[in-house]
């Protein structure tokens, strides 16, 4: 999937330090439907590491972490 492909849900978590991008993603996963794709925009370096870790642990699919100019676009698919 190329980094600009549209997703079902887009969360702009740039500037979010508390609760933070991962919390925003967990919320979207809980509220979402199985099979949905979620893109999260983040400029928090820790999230680039934490989100893939959590996605792996929780059994969802990490489609990609894409570097944008001043932020990352992390795309995840809800699998269960």
């Amino acid at each position, binding site marked *: 999937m190329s980094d600009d492909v549209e997703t079902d849900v887009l969360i702009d978590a740039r500037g979010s330090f508390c609760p933070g991008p991962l919390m925003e993603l967990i919320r979207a996963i809980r509220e979402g439907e199985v099979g949905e794709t979620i893109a999260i925009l983040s400029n*928090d370096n820790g999230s680039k590491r934490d989100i893939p870790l959590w996605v792996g*642990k929780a059994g969802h699919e990490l489609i990609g972490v894409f570097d944008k100019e001043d932020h990352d676009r992390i795309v995840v698919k809800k699998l269960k």
Partner: protein
Amino acid sequence: MVANSLAKSLKKEEAEITLVDEDGKHVYQPGFIYISFGNEKPHKIVKDERKLLRRKVNLVVDKAVKIDVDDRKVTTSKDKKLEYDYLVLATGAEIHPEDIPGCEDAYHFYDTESSVKLRKALAEFNGGRIVIGIGGIPYKCPPAPAESACLMDYYFHRRGIRDKVTIELLSPLPRIFPIEPIDPLVSEVFEMKNIKSQTFFNVESVEPEKKLVHSLEGESADYDLLILIPPHKGAKVIRATQLCDRGGWIITDRETLKVLDYDDVYAIGDATNLPVSKSGAAAHYENSVVTGSIIGDIRGTSKGEKYDGRVTCFCDAGFRRGIMLDFDYEHPPVPPPFSRMAYFKKMFFNKFYWWILPKDRLPGFVTGKLE
């Protein structure tokens, strides 16, 4: 807060201000946690809204049941139809413990009645495993679970049975504290206080018969006493509109605080979908943006007010020490010292909240921007 700030600045002939509130009461929610540990009385954290409002504000004690932003009208349960030129939505967050199967075996401190129940359960607890879990994201006051673990440690120390109690926090994140730069400091405190933790544990269900709590990630933890931060949702009246996302959180512009494409509808506080802590502090900073914007619009002096994502919070770490955090969209929080000063500031705030905040009496420098 918004009603009072508008009433303070606008003359009678400039605007008529009406506040609709379901029960006419204002509750100071940071007090819940202190009720649980026996340091606060339930009647001290609630006041009649009328007594806090300026005379110019009309108070309608009734439930809003329908919001029609195209027709600019709010309908209440007594079928009162209120028309508006500007609407500010501040409906807060609802808690839904029942969304977690098995929740009947868990306690929490997110309303007065439950905090009183927890106080009783803690007073009767003489040893064993206390587990604190998080039943849903987002929830009000993200540091509250870690804060409650520290206060629990202090509470059992005071009772002289700390060595008989294991305290464990189940964190939904890969760290204990939601704010990353502060996590090393909080981890150190947890180690010092012998508070255990598990990470990546988003509570999914509880099995009361086995005294087990299960996570979304597929793990389990056993408990003797379980405290579960309940799942939160936006207010029912909001969920019935097209103004919100799936959690019922109002889709709000992160800077102007306007709702979707409506120029005359604003949202503040816990009700929004903004990526900031659901905190009274955020609501406070948002208030000056919304009131500034409405007043500017009415008078034709608009300066394009923008919310910068600012949040300030004081966390009580027990033993009369605390930390103060201050951050916004552009400035991540910096690890602060653990100090008596931060603790006393929190206590000062708890005492003087009623006099200062709802009445909009905070000095200007406290509402300034971070540099």
